[in-house]
């Protein structure tokens, strides 16, 4: 196989249509006659719905139906996580949700729905309906550790102390190891905040009847999983539903959950298959979809005088919100990473995933690792400082060494990735000069520079099923369409896949056409995109399927050229006789001849499934340079450089785009974003894009993305995960840089003026002008 297209910055296939504004997203496809659904959300954080009087709402002109939780005659509890189904009941996701519930567990829980002819009527009816709900209010709890206390309100009967899951790992003996003389102990609490994905296209779906089935068109990352869960939620056969995924305006993990597809499908069924649309408003997207878990960490390390770790402990409390969604998987990923990133013989680790009366936390870019990386890398910095070592050298000394093998996942660190990434990043940003220059500053405005790394892997093997299926169909001119279960959601998966097919099959890139939109009736089965799995997992099925097709093509070429198959090859669209390099015919001539021959006409196509039984480490680093205005409690990010080893880069411009996006999400996570709830009522306070401070154009410096390319030996094309890793190391790098500038190493996110004001005041860097008054 030649690498003619792999590694090239080819333009993504959909860029032209997107620049023209003619790409169709879900709302663009929906007929304007659709009835509009608006969801009735709970306005208590914990309670029981006693009664909903629908009479007044039903009188609003244009209202078609009002549904309440009491209309749900059959209660089918269902899971929502976009995990592959497990045939082992013990490994299935927790079924704790209903389409509508009379037992709301957070402010924003779904207790009813209005269906109307237009949005205005639906909104008017909804406002009336909100006032017609009678609740029995119950005490609520918002904090994970408080939810575990005796006497805290219990959310789900089968989970005492609200603990969804508790996991421990133990290696060696911490108790014995810390008896070693001369150890230095470093201990810290690290607090991460809840944030939201903020894809610019809100979640939207619509449903209608077709024959005896229901079609659901949804802005989702996981169409085949959505079909299964709609089946579970309605108690109907899965095949009764057809799910179509159009172009998606961003997902970032929120759309790796089943959101309102079951409700929308159910309503369409109740209305005899009428076309109904649910376009979730931004305010509801913030609190009624999924959010990132807020996780609180406690880490202790005991270090020897040479800076090596003698023993370490790790504890994490993961605020899961009111329903399980992805459950324990997110906290567990951090726990799993802890002993791997900085290996140590003696480790105790523990995590609790805890239900609280907050919005439901689910998957979000990084799947628990932006949180864990913050804790790990704040702590690593603190350890380096305690040992008076350069933070970068400390990391080089203690990080996972080359050759490290992880028995459970069978992952191995094949290359000197960490050092290569550090070296490249340090050179680009000028780390060594600046770190010396910025030492020992005084004055109101100071600068700092720092580095952070992270642990990540690719795909979900061996925890869950990894499978990918591909279909390639050849046209009369030798061009092909291909279909995959791995969805295009903006990352460029379709284009990367087309590059792989072009090289493996041996035809020009412009003859490879993705069928970009998945349809469960047509698309081969696949679980979607998540876990940074796309390029890695689809690679296996693409390579296998393209080779199958190539075999058929060469067999057909034998018929028309009389040459033996073993002396033939398909190279960039030409059937070549390998013995002398002579070009015998084009793929177009061959495809046409094979289809229309009266002697064995054949439609050239291939389809196959590959089950993946490997995984791959995907590492990198982030360097951040900041300027801190101490009196203003403001941080300006001056420069940021991420270097990643994602193996073979299939498309440099798309890969850089993934890194930029992760850096951007990390910048907001580090400096400004935080969802807030009112402690007294449990009501969300800033669920809109004005009060929730997503980082804007002005908060971004130039973003630098670079790569080291160590070909991943387990991979079909040498690739490994890249979608999520860039978001992981940003916040700790910024925190550590602020620390270098000010001497204050703050263990809380975001590092917004609010946080800095408190920290700077407490540390005496600034005087609180109101301190006297407030006493």
């Amino acid at each position: 196989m030649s690498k003619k297209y792999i590694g090239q910055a080819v333009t993504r296939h959909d860029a032209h249509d997107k620049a023209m504004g003619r790409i169709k997203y879900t709302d663009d496809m929906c007929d304007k006659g659709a009835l509009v659904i608006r969801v009735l959300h709970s306005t208590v954080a914990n309670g029981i719905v006693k009664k909903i009087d629908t009479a007044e709402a039903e009188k609003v002109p244009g209202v078609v139906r009002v549904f309440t939780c009491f209309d749900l005659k059959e209660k089918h509890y269902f899971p929502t996580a976009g995990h592959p189904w497990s045939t082992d009941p013990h490994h299935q996701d927790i079924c704790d949700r209903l389409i509508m519930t009379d037992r709301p567990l957070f402010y924003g829980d779904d207790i009813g729905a209005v269906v109307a002819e237009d949005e205005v009527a639906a909104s008017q009816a909804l406002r009336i309906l909100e006032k017609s709900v009678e609740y029995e209010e119950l005490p609520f709890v918002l904090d994970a550790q408080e939810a575990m206390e005796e006497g805290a309100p219990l959310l789900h009967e089968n989970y005492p102390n609200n603990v969804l899951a508790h996991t421990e790992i133990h290696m060696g003996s911490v108790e014995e190891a810390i008896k070693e003389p001369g150890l230095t102990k470093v201990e810290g609490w690290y607090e991460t905040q809840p944030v939201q994905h903020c894809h610019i296209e809100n979640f939207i779906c619509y449903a209608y009847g077709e024959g005896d089935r229901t079609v659901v068109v949804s802005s989702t990352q996981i169409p085949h999983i959505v079909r299964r869960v709609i089946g579970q939620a309605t108690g109907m056969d899965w095949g009764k539903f057809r799910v179509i995924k159009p172009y998606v305006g961003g997902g970032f993990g929120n759309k790796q959950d089943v959101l309102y597809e079951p409700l929308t499908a159910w309503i369409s069924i109740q209305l005899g298959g009428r076309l109904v649309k649910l376009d979730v408003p931004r305010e509801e997207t913030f609190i009624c979809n999924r959010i990132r878990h807020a996780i609180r960490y406690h880490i202790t390390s005991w270090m020897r005088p040479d800076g090596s770790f003698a023993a370490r402990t790790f504890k994490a409390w993961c605020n899961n919100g009111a329903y399980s969604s992805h459950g324990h998987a997110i906290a567990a990923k951090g726990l799993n990473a802890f002993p791997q990133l900085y290996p140590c013989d003696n480790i105790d680790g523990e995590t609790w995933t805890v239900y609280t009366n907050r919005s439901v936390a689910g998957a979000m870019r990084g799947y628990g690792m932006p949180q864990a990386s913050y804790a790990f890398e704040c702590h690593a910095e603190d350890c380096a400082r305690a040992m008076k070592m350069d933070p970068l050298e400390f990391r080089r000394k203690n990080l996972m060494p080359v050759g490290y093998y992880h028995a459970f996942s069978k992952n191995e660190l094949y290359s000197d990735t960490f050092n290569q990434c550090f070296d490249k990043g340090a050179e680009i940003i000028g780390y060594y000069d600046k770190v010396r220059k910025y030492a020992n500053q005084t004055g109101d405005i100071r600068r700092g520079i720092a580095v952070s790394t992270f642990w990540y892997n690719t795909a979900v093997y061996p925890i869950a099923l990894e499978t990918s299926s591909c279909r390639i169909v050849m046209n009369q001119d030798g061009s092909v369409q291909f279909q995959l279960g791995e969805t295009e959601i903006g990352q460029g998966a379709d284009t990367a896949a087309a590059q792989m097919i072009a090289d493996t099959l041996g035809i020009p890139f412009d003859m490879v056409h993705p069928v970009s939109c998945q349809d469960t009736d047509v698309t081969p089965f696949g679980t979607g995109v998540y876990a940074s799995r796309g390029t890695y997992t689809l690679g296996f099925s693409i390579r296998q399927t393209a080779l199958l097709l190539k075999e058929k093509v060469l067999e057909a070429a034998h018929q028309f050229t009389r040459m033996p198959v073993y002396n033939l090859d398909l190279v960039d669209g030409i059937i070549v006789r390998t013995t002398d390099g002579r070009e015998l015919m084009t793929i177009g001539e061959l495809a046409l001849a094979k289809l229309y021959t009266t002697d064995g006409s054949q439609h050239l196509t291939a389809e196959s499934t590959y089950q993946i039984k490997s995984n791959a480490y995907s590492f990198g680093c982030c360097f951040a340079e900041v300027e801190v205005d101490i009196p203003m409690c403001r941080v300006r990010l001056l420069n940021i450089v991420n270097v990643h080893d994602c193996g073979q880069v299939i498309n440099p411009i798309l890969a850089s785009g993934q890194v930029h996006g992760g850096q951007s999400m990390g910048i907001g996570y580090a400096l400004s974003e935080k969802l807030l709830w009112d402690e007294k009522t449990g009501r969300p306070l800033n669920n809109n894009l004005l009060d929730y401070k997503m980082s804007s154009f002005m908060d971004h410096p130039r973003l630098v993305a670079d790569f080291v390319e160590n070909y991943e030996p387990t991979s079909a094309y040498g690739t490994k995960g890249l979608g999520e890793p860039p978001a992981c190391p940003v916040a700790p790098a910024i925190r550590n840089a602020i620390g270098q500038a000010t001497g204050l190493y703050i263990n809380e996110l975001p590092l917004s003026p609010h946080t800095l004001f408190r920290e700077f005041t407490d540390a005496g860097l600034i005087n609180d002008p109101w301190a006297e008054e407030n006493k």
Partner: protein
Amino acid sequence: MDKQYKVVHCTINGKKVERIVDVRASLTDMLRNDFRLTSVKKGCEVGECGACTVIIDGEGFNSCIYLAVWAEGKEIWTLEGLIGPGGELSDIQQAFIDEGAIQCGFCTPGFIMTSWEIVNSGKEYTDDELRKALSGHLCRCTGYENIFRAVKKTMLRHLGKFEEAEKVNSQGITEYPEPMPFK
């Protein structure tokens, strides 16, 4: 409550039109529903995200918080209007493609409209001014980096500064002046 309607006359993408609209409808709704100009995207419907930006009498507006009835007598341009009669792209659209400034594409139409206003203003924006002028648009995919390059390059080309435009590269580490004397 009875619905109220009003006739609106305006020019959309160079063509004079008139429509009867619900007086409560936003310009976004009118453009999307009545004219099928679906490049006008809805991301928040309260003027926060910029995805619905259109040009009204030469100036960018969030069409979601602009009532359809206010369009009376106005000249409105959407992304569809930037395309030539033979489907030709404008240079700013092409720059978004060439610089990899498009990922999911949902914020793209709004961004291109504001960028179009910038590059056709005849003004040379500083980097900070460019960021500020574009800061009414939110994007979660790109980190704005490639969008910045696309807009800056196109702006410089419009000003005849072709060599300077080619120097706007990725991997730009910025050296800032010293903030304060060090002790």
